[in-house]
């Protein structure tokens, strides 16, 4: 149990974790972009980035610097306050949800056991759902405040899409929550020691992943930024670092969704552990990272393969297909859980 004398150390540990996680997340985002460009390029029989660094590995750095040095244009007709606030909102909220994701079990440093997670909220899952729902404000406000037609359409589409798929997303994970009997992600992961949840909740996983792709505005649900229809969608009027913020928010959301899928359905950090103590405590992090990477790869793979839905078809698909299925899944799971406990 932590006492008051431990407080400085715990604070330090938490701060260190925040910094490490933030740095790792930013790097992951940068390299997810690189990975995406590389994987999609190879799918399309191209080379992708190749000139900046070996195999274009320094490309993300170059891109980041470029964004910093670009002129930051704020068009005359925009609502300045909201226009500047929207990317911040999208960016912050996208990064916030990562704080409750457990990356590994724990490490023991100087007699103190530090869990590999920024904070273990007992309603962690609920927190993530809440924060990702708030993310729609960034997009909707960006579309609205730009005071221009294409961004407006993008913002509207996005709001409608996020709200529709939020329901499916929430319901898809209810099954897992019922099995685990907890909303804490750490506990959900720990309960998967015997069998991963994917085997208990296959339908739940498929629904979750579909809804998650829609939530993160990725192909085939990338309507809010369908460049062939809406030019740039909600971020048409944005430039320089404000645009980069949206860009990073999108990839941060992808990472979060992948982390969540790993934790909820694929046993999080669980995997074979061996070797000396330090390896034993860090190996789970590697498993976790590998699983998340697999998800990111699938995301990119889908993007390289599928065409895009139409707006109304997307809505139909959400309300008439995935939502009833999610409800059915909840019903079925609850019946089984009730039968087991009876």
């Amino acid at each position, binding site marked *: 149990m932590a006492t008051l004398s431990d407080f400085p150390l715990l604070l330090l540990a938490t701060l260190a974790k925040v910094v490490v996680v933030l740095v790792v997340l930013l790097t992951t985002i940068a390299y997810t972009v690189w990975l995406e460009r590389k994987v*999609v390029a190879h*799918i*399309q*029989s*191209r080379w992708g980035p190749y000139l900046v660094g070996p195999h274009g590995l320094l490309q993300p750095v170059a891109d980041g610097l470029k964004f910093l040095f670009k002129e930051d244009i704020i068009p005359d007709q925009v609502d300045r306050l909201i226009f500047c606030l929207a990317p911040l909102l999208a960016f912050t909220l996208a990064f916030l949800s990562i704080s409750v994701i457990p990356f590994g079990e724990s490490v023991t440093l100087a007699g103190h056991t530090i869990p590999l997670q920024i904070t273990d909220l007992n309603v962690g899952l609920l927190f993530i759902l809440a924060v990702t729902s708030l993310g729609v404000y960034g997009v909707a406000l960006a579309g609205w405040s730009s005071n221009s*037609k294409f961004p407006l*359409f993008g913002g509207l589409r996005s709001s409608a899409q996020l709200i529709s798929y939020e329901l499916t997303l929430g319901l898809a994970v209810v099954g897992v929550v019922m099995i685990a009997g907890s909303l804490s992600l750490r506990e959900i992961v720990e309960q998967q020691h015997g069998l991963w949840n994917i085997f208990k909740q296959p339908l739940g996983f498929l629904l979750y992943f579909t809804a998650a792709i829609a939530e993160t505005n990725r*192909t*085939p649900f*990338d*309507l809010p930024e*369908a*460049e*062939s*229809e*809406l*030019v740039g969608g909600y971020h048409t009027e944005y430039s320089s670092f404000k645009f980069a913020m949206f860009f990073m928010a999108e990839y941060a959301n992808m990472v979060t969704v992948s982390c969540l899928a790993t934790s909820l359905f694929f046993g999080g950090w669980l995997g074979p552990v061996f070797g000396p103590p330090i390896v034993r405590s860090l190996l789970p992090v590697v498993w976790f990272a590998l699983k998340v990477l697999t998800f990111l790869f699938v995301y990119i793979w889908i*993007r*390289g*393969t*599928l*065409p*895009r*839905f*139409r*707006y*109304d*078809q997307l809505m139909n698909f959400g309300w008439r297909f995935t939502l009833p299925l999610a409800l059915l899944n909840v019903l079925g799971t609850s019946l089984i859980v009730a039968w087991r406990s009876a």
Partner: protein
Amino acid sequence: MAVTLEKIPGQEERVILSMGPQHPSTHGVLRLVLELDGETVIRSLFDIGYLHTGFEKSFEALTYSQGITLTDRMDYLAPLSNNLGFCLAIEKLLDLEAPPRAQWTRVLLTELTRIQSHLVWLGSHALELGAMSVFLYCFREREDILRIFELVSGQRMMTSYFRVGGLALEPPLGWLRRVEKFVQMFPARLQEYEDLLTKNPIWLKRTVGIGTISAEDAVALSLSGPSLRASGVNWDIRKAEPYSSYEKFQFNVPTRPEGDVYARYLVRMDEMRESLKIVRQAMEGMPEGPIKANAPHVVLPDRESMKTSIEALIYHFKLVTEGFHPPVGEVYQTIESPRGEIGFYIVSDGSPKPYRCHVRAPSFGNLTTLLKIIEGRLLADVVACIASLDTVLGEIDR
């Protein structure tokens, strides 16, 4: 003064969206003015002319041979088809026929042009519906065809390879082997695109029943080419009024009765297979003989004969400095370009430059159907419809 939609008095205000000319999916510089209710198109107008370069007027300032270079630049995705149409029109005026080998080569190259033009269409169509990979696959294969063009004419896109009375140059030795290689490779690639799209549920959802146009409307609005055949009208100039020995080739004209975006997709996919068939026949049955007609007053002489015969040298000088003099009269010649019926109407006053040259551009006719088929449709369908009509703005804004 930009085209705009006037507000109808007494009606509630709706969003007027100006789509283009710098919009990513208006195929160049088409501008659409859309009145939207939500995302549904209520009324629409199109605004063309952003790519106007005055081709038709420019023809009057150039000799007939020089005019060929303009035809490349009109429909920049099907340069050889345009070359052929223009050359055939002048040959008709001169009552001249190209030798068999030239005709066969022309058929072979125009069918390759059809394939590469359809590849660009397929690629951009897929890209506009979000399937990005197909776009790059198509351009990969198109590159092979462009290399063949470069091999033959020295130019990838602006080939200007066909000349009045034959071809510009003797094609290099062994060029048919390159064509052979392409013909061998292409069917598998075509299958690859079909695997990605034809039965893909999302693709079907985006294309089936969208932008339907009936056969009557299609004819009334002067739709032509594959888009017309997708509405169930079996009309192909290659069959109806054969030119350049097309009557000697066996091929089918694919048609579909539905008339929607998906039908237009299927027809063009089948057309690529048929074109491949023609290419194979032309390759196998390629006759021997000269590549230019024996008409010294029109056709440039060989370099060898110029050095040995004084007449050839004089003709060369006359043709290069002045051009040839066709008889007074007017002539109209249509051919089946990848986009449809392209016609060249030429009026000659006996001078080496045409008095007037008008082009019946298939894209222009095809575009006129657009407003009809996007009415009441969603914004995303507008993009699909534009893509499925396969218009080239360079040709519309002559």
